[in-house]
């Protein structure tokens, strides 16, 4: 692995100064390191300088006045998953965190870093094979290769990688806001605009500008998300990336879906907010048939390859099961 300098700035300003123009061949920010350190070893990340942000105080988990939450970027995944307010208001965020990685990794991984996880596409992680994300213009090996974990939705001819995060799936459903600070000051990025589709620039995972630092993730109030569910499907019962996953919250009144949030994981270059399904379901009866029609509307956009076609049915059935479970329990309430 390439030798690098290590810097531990005492403030955001100092970190930004160290990062300079933010060329990521020269500097990389380090938080939990659970993804970056692997990449240093594998030669995927080859920075000259690591700028360690892990000791900067970005705040903990704070309840906002309107009933939302503000989560400091350095809050560890394990701490966030255990946060009582999060578990009460947005249980599927906690479920998603606990469905990811292992206890050891969750104790290291940060909230901000979780958003910046890079794809687990096996060709991206192997420097001996072409990959447009790792080496723009070299080609996509996954298109005609090992395709079980390829994207179903929103892929391009240049990249079929999926975003691996569990946490980001419910955050997409919740329209979370990513707060960042960069050389140009602070800004807030709506979650849907934070990650991007590969298009012809798959080397860019997000819309972060050079040197920008994630300082917090904010979840806006959504009272009915206190009834929400994250379900992850995988070969191995734990410690595996999702084949597919479903994050859902439903608001039902008199048997009719008044509002719904639905996001899918393991299907796209970004956590996939299922807006077509949401639109199709709003105002419909809370029945399995309506759920199925809704997810089918979403899955019209699916473009399966040779190895991942089974996921279309898997997503349909899992989504229907999750929505049914959420609404049935609602109906059972006195």
């Amino acid at each position, binding site marked *: 692995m390439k030798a690098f300098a290590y810097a531990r700035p005492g403030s955001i300003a100092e970190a930004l100064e160290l990062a300079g123009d933010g060329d990521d061949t020269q500097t990389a920010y380090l938080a939990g390191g659970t993804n970056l350190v692997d990449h240093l070893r594998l030669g995927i990340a080859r920075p000259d300088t690591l700028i360690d942000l892990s000791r900067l105080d970005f705040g903990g988990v704070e309840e906002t006045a309107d009933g939302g939450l503000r989560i400091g970027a350095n809050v560890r995944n394990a701490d966030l998953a255990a946060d009582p307010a999060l578990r009460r208001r947005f249980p599927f965020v906690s479920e998603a965190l606990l469905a990811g990685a292992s206890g050891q990794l969750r104790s290291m991984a940060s909230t901000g870093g979780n958003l910046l996880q890079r794809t687990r596409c096996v060709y991206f*992680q192997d420097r001996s*094979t072409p990959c447009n994300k790792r080496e723009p213009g070299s080609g996509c090996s996954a298109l005609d290769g090992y395709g*079980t974990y390829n994207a179903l939705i929103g892929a391009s001819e240049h990249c079929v990688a999926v975003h691996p995060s569990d946490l980001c799936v419910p955050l997409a459903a919740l329209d979370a806001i990513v707060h960042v600070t960069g050389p140009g000051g602070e800004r807030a990025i709506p979650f849907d605009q934070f990650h991007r589709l590969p298009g012809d620039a798959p080397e860019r995972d997000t819309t972060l500008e050079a040197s920008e630092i994630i300082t917090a993730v904010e979840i806006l109030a959504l009272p009915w998300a206190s009834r929400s569910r994250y379900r992850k499907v995988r*070969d191995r*019962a734990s410690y595996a990336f999702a084949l597919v996953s479903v994050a859902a919250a439903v608001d039902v009144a008199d048997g009719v879906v008044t509002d719904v949030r639905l996001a899918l994981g393991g299907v796209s270059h970004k956590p996939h907010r299922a807006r077509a399904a949401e639109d199709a379901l709003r105002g419909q009866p809370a029945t399995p048939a309506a759920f199925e029609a809704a997810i089918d509307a979403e899955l019209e956009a699916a473009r399966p390859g040779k190895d991942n076609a*089974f996921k279309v049915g898997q997503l349909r059935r*899992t989504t229907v*099961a999750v929505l049914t479970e959420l609404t049935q329990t609602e109906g059972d309430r006195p």
Partner: protein
Amino acid sequence: MTATRDAQGRSSESPVLPLHAAPDPQRSAGPREPSVGTDRRRVDAPLKVTGTAPYAYEHPTTNPCHVWPVLSTIARGTIIGVDASRAAAVPGVIRVLTHADAPRLRVKADAGLWILQGPEVHHRGQIIGGVIADTPEAAREAAELLVFTYDEAPSKVELDPDGPDVTTAKVVLMRPGSETKGDPEQGWGEGVHRVDATYEHTAQYHAQMEPHAVIATWHEVSPLDVRATRLTLQDSNQGPLPHRLLLAPLLGLLPHQLDVSSPYVGGAFGGKAFPHPHLVLASLAAKIVSPRPVKLALTRQQMFSVVGHRAASSQHVRLAADAEGRLTMVEHVSTQAASRVKNSVDHSCMSTRMMYATPNRHTEHRVLELDVPPSTWMRAPGDFTGMFALETALDELAHTAGIDPVDLRVRNEPDVDPENGKPWSTRALVACLQRGAERFGWDERQAPGQRRDGEWQIGLGMASAVFPNMHMVTFAAKILFTGGRYVVQLQASDIGTGAHTVLAQIAADALGVDPDLVVTDIGRTGTPMAMVAGGSSGTYEWGNSVVAACEAFRRKHGLHPAEGASATGRSGPPKGSNKYSRNAFGAHFAEVAVSSVTDEVRVRRLLGVYAAGTIINPRTARSQVMGGMIMALSGALLEESYRDPRFGHIANGDLASYHVAAHADVPPIDVEFLPEHDPWFGAKGSKGIGEIGMVGTPAALGNAVFNATGKRLRSLPFTPSALAEA
């Protein structure tokens, strides 16, 4: 422990007692209950759970350097250029090694170890270079910067069982690779019920908790006396014998010039039975930087091409039976991928020859040589694969014939070994099947697709298990009395099985002392030669030698030996044992749940019932067969490799993408050993238990999936993707 060494680098004869030896001199010799057959805690457990047992990479060394292997990135071709300029310029780099300048090897004792001797590339992931540096980081970075250019040749890496280049193996496990009894086609014609199916799996990979690692030190005493040269390997292996047989001549050394120590091993499973090419690289590097020690630890990714694997295979089985379910014909043809470098064939059809009675049988081992790395032993090689096929086919036959799967097996129980007509030394398969059925609640089994628990479809399945005797040669052991303790010395190895613990029990009974007065000095050269920990034979095979040595010791020194007294005993298989067919038997029962929503398969419970002779230590034995069942569960449900034909590599070659079972995958596991004593394996009446847990378990799980869903899965692993497409 490592043999001590004098200034000339000579290994001393005095033992270095294992760290875990905790003698209690207050305990006296005298009349006592036998230790064999009773629970005894692992003597090395405290060291292991506290992280203080030294594994290969952890031995203290002074001023070591590090070598990083460079692996080929094509599957076949010739190296036509090497640019080492950037690699050599990395600070801390001592030497870049390639075929152009590596020291020459001498005797090609093993083609898989013949590295860095020429520009030819035989498979993807071949060691084609190495970088020696002061730190592992510098070595790795330089390895990344070492540029090879190739003249690439067309390669073939995929198993096509019907392809034109498939050949029949002449000899497998010292028996004919192909054999026919009776008239199989006539038997097929006589069948009222028939099965004709093909069972497959991709290559499976070793994932020992301790990756392969070594510290190599080359002691060149004098250029005038090459015979005084010694090479020390602090390694992780299953015993030093293959190292001395294969590595020493390769490196131009006599066997005794190679010292090997491997006191603690973090899992081996056959993957550490033979030396792999990284040991050659480390040894060559050690020769270059002598006398500095050289450290090498493989990454998980490198293990997918350097240390062998279970070869991909396709098993074609045809079964025919009369109206009562008696087999009129059995045919089993195994076609296995092999490496052009070194062709090793798993004995996948051997169990089929002896499991069930039939007048007509054909079994055949076929191989297809490919541009892939050599395969090696992987726990229950052959039996794992072949019994998945045979025992699944029997379940299919039972379903077709409307006969209970347990009953079908009982109806085909043979009186003598169908392959060779020999009587059984002991065979309690039927007892295992019936006891298992009773203990598991087999009578609760319903027709396929009938039981549900919410979205989960529930099913039960079973399969037979077998593992043969592998004891062939006579070896020795030595007992040394020192410091009030009896030291058992032989080149055995505790690969996590409990050998330290049970060999002490065996010796204690033979000597008539408390087991705490016995310590084991194994896992190194400098002690009597013994077979590797392999073929599930260690405990009975080593145990025989140990008993012989203990008896020799008492004959020679009586009950009150002097300090330093010693005696050596030799033993092989019991005289006359060749007249018997000798095998351990068992039965596996499984309950699975398959989600009708996600197609996920989760195992709810597993049972193994075994007739495996005397159980030396029920505690470690139970742990060992449970480990076998868990490893088989992992192989059956999760382990799928994808070899990319464009690049020749395992694309999902790391443990994030190649899944091995996690704790959450493992259900409650129940184990029962039936009382049995078999005098034809060895002195204690025991049989082998290291691998039998692997055998048949995948079929039991697949048969349970069929019972749950009505879907027959004929390829491992049983993933949601496989279920969805079935």
